[in-house]
């Protein structure tokens, strides 16, 4: 029963998943599986554990899609939040914590699909926004989000008072939100129907 779900929004797919439609789950995976796996791999630094985290997250989506409220959040945020939480829980169970940097695998640049091209554009915008953050804020955000460290572990690791770490994360995230909103408006302008269809 192959159906073309490509025209549906992410939120509509989640609504179908809530009705136990597995082809909608497959479509969500096709849209977010790569980013989800990349995120999990970056956090847990082990391909098998990353697969576990992604699998658990997608099964959580399958089980709890009915609880998703589209008025409150984007489906992509919901999905990546589940993946991240899962990955962080996995990495915190693993001791000792691995901290060596994980080499990113550059993608071959030829023959990008349209999706990959959008992903790449998105990535360069996030990277640019991060570059514009003060170093200490960027460091706090990256260690927390990708390192899976708790705020207390971060304070210890960076030799700073906990209060300083908390406010760096808050200020950094608020600033990043502004920077991304600026680029987001630009992206929206280019992503309107007259350009994409």
């Amino acid at each position, binding site marked *: 029963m192959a159906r073309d779900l490509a025209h549906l929004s992410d939120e509509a797919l989640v609504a179908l998943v809530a009705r136990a439609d597995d082809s909608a789950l497959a479509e969500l995976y096709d849209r977010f599986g790569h980013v989800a796996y990349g995120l999990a791999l970056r956090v847990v630094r082990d391909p098998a554990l990353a697969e576990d985290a992604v*699998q658990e997250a997608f099964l959580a989506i399958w089980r709890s899609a*009915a609880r998703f409220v589209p008025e409150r959040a984007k489906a992509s945020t919901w999905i990546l939040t589940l993946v991240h939480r899962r990955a962080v829980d996995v990495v915190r169970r693993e001791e000792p914590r691995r901290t060596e940097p994980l080499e990113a695998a550059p993608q071959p640049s030829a023959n990008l699909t349209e999706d990959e091209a959008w992903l790449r554009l998105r990535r360069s915008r*996030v990277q640019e926004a991060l570059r514009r953050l003060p170093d200490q804020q960027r460091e706090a955000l990256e260690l*927390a989000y990708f390192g899976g460290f708790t705020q207390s572990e971060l304070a210890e690791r960076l030799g700073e008072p906990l209060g300083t770490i*908390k406010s760096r994360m808050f200020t*950094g*995230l608020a600033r990043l939100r502004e920077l991304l909103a600026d680029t987001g408006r630009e992206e929206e302008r280019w992503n309107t129907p007259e350009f994409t269809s």
Partner: protein
Amino acid sequence: MEHTGIHELSAAYALDALAGDERREFEGHLTHCPDCRATVASFQETASALAHQVDMPPPPPSLRDRILEQARRERSNVVPLRPRWALPATATVAAVAACAAIGLGIWAASLNNRLGDRPEAVGLIGAQGSLIVNPSGEGTLVVRNVDPAPPGETYEIWVIQAGTPVPAGTFAGGDRVAVTLTRKIPDGAIVAVTLERAGGVAKPTTTPLFRTGAV
């Protein structure tokens, strides 16, 4: 803690940088702080944008198959099965699965919804319909196209918490069924329906025909 102090934790929460006990405490705060809920929602969106920052290899194709296979297997747990099996094992599995989903963190959106004025609707797995739960835990099961129960039998509703099912009402089936549960639904419980002998029984003797996810 004063509010500004705890409000600042919205960032750490969105980045998953709170330890387990801190996370639970902050989720407790979220239940009565709409400002923090809004901040968390917007920070989670920002944080998840970070996921796009890194170029990583794609997952192996087998992962997609494994996820879909497991999802289908979970769904098949709730279709009618004959011969009859005792419920408790199945119910425990389902309840554990439901708890695992919740363990991933109280999703701020659903939290918001649960605490809001309007009731929460939870989809059914294995049947068309939903369970509507108001903030105080009173539930109404709305389900369509349920075959009439065979003579001498009835559909019985169960509220299953921590693997223990308790009876919550019966109904006869029909094209449109709306039945109010005789029991409140605690957080994290699931609601399931089995076919039982007429009049209902104290403990389920068959596998669930359909159920909700975690409420």
